[in-house]
């Protein structure tokens, strides 16, 4: 009973805390990527594999969470304005025809942060717009 009570309040607390945060999912990049902001158009071009280089001509390495991961669904719909299945269609069309490499899929947000931190030119996203050690957060223009 006490446990259920505690769980309920934790849920309420979590909902209050997370809802404004999940709405502002963070765009993260490797610290060697120049700049502090990115335009929505540019972000969409990167995730639809149309933009493959950063402005300083460094190759972009794109990381994604699984198609059904809540943070991916939120990111795709709110930041890119695309349904996850449409993104997948684009990646499949480009990759299976040999025209581009599909984004690299990681299993969770911990791996996302670790891989973005370790990979030069990397871009990814997390559900919380927070500051992490060794990762740069980009502001969305």
């Amino acid at each position, binding site marked *: 009973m006490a446990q259920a009570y505690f769980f309920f309040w934790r849920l309420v607390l979590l909902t209050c805390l997370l809802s404004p945060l999940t709405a502002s999912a963070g765009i993260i990049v490797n610290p060697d990527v120049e700049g502090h902001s990115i335009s929505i158009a540019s972000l969409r071009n990167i995730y639809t594999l149309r933009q493959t280089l950063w402005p300083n001509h460094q190759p972009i390495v794109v990381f994604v969470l699984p198609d059904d991961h809540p943070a991916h669904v939120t990111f795709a719909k709110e930041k890119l304005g695309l*349904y996850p299945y449409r993104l997948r269609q684009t990646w499949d069309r480009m990759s299976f025809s040999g025209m581009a490499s599909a984004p690299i899929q990681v299993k969770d947000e911990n791996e996302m942060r670790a891989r973005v931190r370790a990979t030069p030119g990397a871009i990814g996203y997390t559900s919380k717009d927070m500051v992490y050690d060794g990762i740069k957060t980009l502001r969305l223009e």
Partner: protein
Amino acid sequence: MTASRRLGWNSLLLGSLLAVSPVQADELVGPRYQIQGFAAQGLIGSTNNRFFGDSRNGVSTEFTEAGLHGTWQALDAVRLSGQVLYRRAGESDHDGLRVDYAQADWQFYQTEVSQLGLKFGKVKLPYGLYNETRDVPFTRSGILLPQSVYVDNSRDLLLAAPGAFLHGASVQEYGAFDFLLGWVRPNFDSPSVDYSFLGNTRPGKLEGKGALGARLRWDLPTDTTLMLTYANARAEYAPGSSDTLAAGKVQFRNILFTVQQRLDTVTLTAEYGEPRFDTAGFGPFLPNSHRVIQSGYLQGEWRFLPAWELMLRHDIFYRDKHDKDGHLFAATTGLPAHSMFARDTTLGLRWDTTPNLMLRAEFHHVDGTGWLPGPDNPIFLGREQRWNMWLLQAAYRF
């Protein structure tokens, strides 16, 4: 796709495939290669005619597709990619395992949002929306693609061929542009191509002489895609022993128009073309001909739930635009008129059970036998005009 987790297995496989030394195993850094693949099995049942196996008297299990695709970014500007494909489609395709394509792509000009490159090798042929990934079940709009445009009958022609393509892409304010322009030597030498171009399997050999291909794609900011594909292919016939045909020539030309509009969860697609098909010099048993084919379809897809999609399509195919109902053909040859057309109404359901597993069901009501696979229905007079077909498919990806 999940490259890092399969690193050991991948390096081994890619190492033997491309004969490169195993890639540096830094688990965290983005890898310079990717391996992905799929396997799919279909079940087909039909009335009156057969499709991919003996689907008429029972359930055909002879529709199997599996592929392994690899990409290796050898240099910043050079990418190697290829696909090994296994395919079984009734009597129409039992070649089993084959190299689908193997190409090198040199991107000699790159800016932030523009690329210019040259790809060569055994390259995928650009043709409409779906051709380059036509054997990857997840990328199709149904278990079967619209047969008017993506005729499985002459698929060998359209798949991939030795040659080279110049390609470019650029993102501008008013949309994204892509183009491909190239020359290939397509493969005409297969029984099903003989069927669709020469009316039957023949003892001789149709040899591809070269084909010009081009495609322009414009993705507008309004979520609209407009596309033009041009193809011009020639082949020459080398008669076999005791052949009734002389050394003739065939030519195939087409401009294919594509329009797609994406509206929230709905996707509307139309493709239309009037391929010109000429035969000449085959002698008295195959008179010279000039035909204008008419082919096209309208298709709607609706993602009514995140993992569920409904598809409705109407597909038309007329082997001779000037003899749509085939009466003239029937009067001059004595063969059934319904082989000159096919009108197919399709209803399909897709369920992405998990991100790796897709299940599909599809129903076709077809009037006409215009694209009915010849090898599965060898008795011309035994084919029937009206027929139905249902298909189920399970497809797995990794």
